[in-house]
């Protein structure tokens, strides 16, 4: 019997519908991240939704397509970058305003309920969102049992 490999996708209908909705899911995740200070949501939940878009690609189109869209190397880098950005913002608060995590960029109180009305909070959210998105995607990759698919630098032959 022809054994399907994890690197293959699901049937044609699922793959096509995945191609239609994946961009919108990712954009929705970014919307939740950016508007975290105005509506419920924020870095973590938005990051989860953005990761869901990539997990959808991993499930429907297979590991190879997922690797081409969002490689594990890039995910690992994004993971670290998110944490570092978050920490850098906290340290900037320490440097510029004297307290760890101080909101050093105060905005006009009259301009409430707009996108740039809460100083550094959206930027912190972006850092958290990047971190959560990449981490959860990596978790899904590891759990989906495609460990056989090697990183480019340590592969010898054709990846399975």
């Amino acid at each position: 019997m022809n054994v399907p490999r994890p690197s293959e996708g699901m049937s044609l209908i699922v793959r096509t519908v995945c191609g239609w909705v994946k961009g919108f899911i990712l954009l929705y995740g970014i919307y939740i991240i950016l508007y975290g200070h105005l509506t419920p949501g924020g870095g973590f939940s938005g990051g989860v939704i953005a990761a869901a878009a990539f997990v959808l690609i991993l499930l429907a189109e297979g590991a190879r397509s997922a690797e081409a869209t969002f490689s594990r190397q890039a995910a690992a880098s994004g993971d670290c970058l998110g944490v570092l950005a978050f920490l850098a913002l906290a340290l900037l608060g320490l440097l510029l305003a004297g307290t760890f995590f101080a909101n050093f960029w105060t905005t006009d109180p009259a301009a409430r309920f707009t996108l740039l009305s809460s100083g550094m909070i959206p930027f912190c959210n972006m850092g958290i969102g990047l971190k959560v998105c990449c981490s959860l995607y990596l978790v899904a990759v590891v759990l989906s049992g495609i460990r056989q698919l090697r990183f480019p630098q340590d592969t010898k032959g054709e990846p399975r």
Partner: protein
Amino acid sequence: MNRLILFVLLFLFWVVLTWTAVPPGPAYLQDVGAGLAAALLVTWAVGEKSGTRLAPWLQPQRYAWAIVYFFVLAVYVIKANLDVAYRVLHPAMPIRPGIVRVKTRLRQPAARAALGNSITLCPGTLAVDIHEDGTMMVHWIYVRSLDEAEAGRMIISRFEWFLEKILE
């Protein structure tokens, strides 16, 4: 081209998402700018380089047929629901299920996917699988014909005609 279409659609989606109850003021420019940036980012991340041609997107008759198709599909969906209600509430449950094989002449993946979803929503049928050559496996709740051509006439011809005009 594919990326351009995706970008426009994503930006429209963003505008719908950030729609406010009050008429937008000058701060709305921030929303639009963030939307442009986010749509660009998403297009770069998941957009495919090749595939779709732009020309079919600019033919207005396709949109007109799509709207007609939507209403036709709505009628079939309501019929399907009444059909299910009849079969479920009837004490004897008049079902005669089976998986039959039909063949579609549609070529484009998008058209095939739309066909599969349509026959899942229309009375008594459920798409189970589709092969490269267009053979579809359909689960039918009340099998009326085991012949490939006749079953095809009963199940998919009514949608194929529309989808050929919209997506092929």
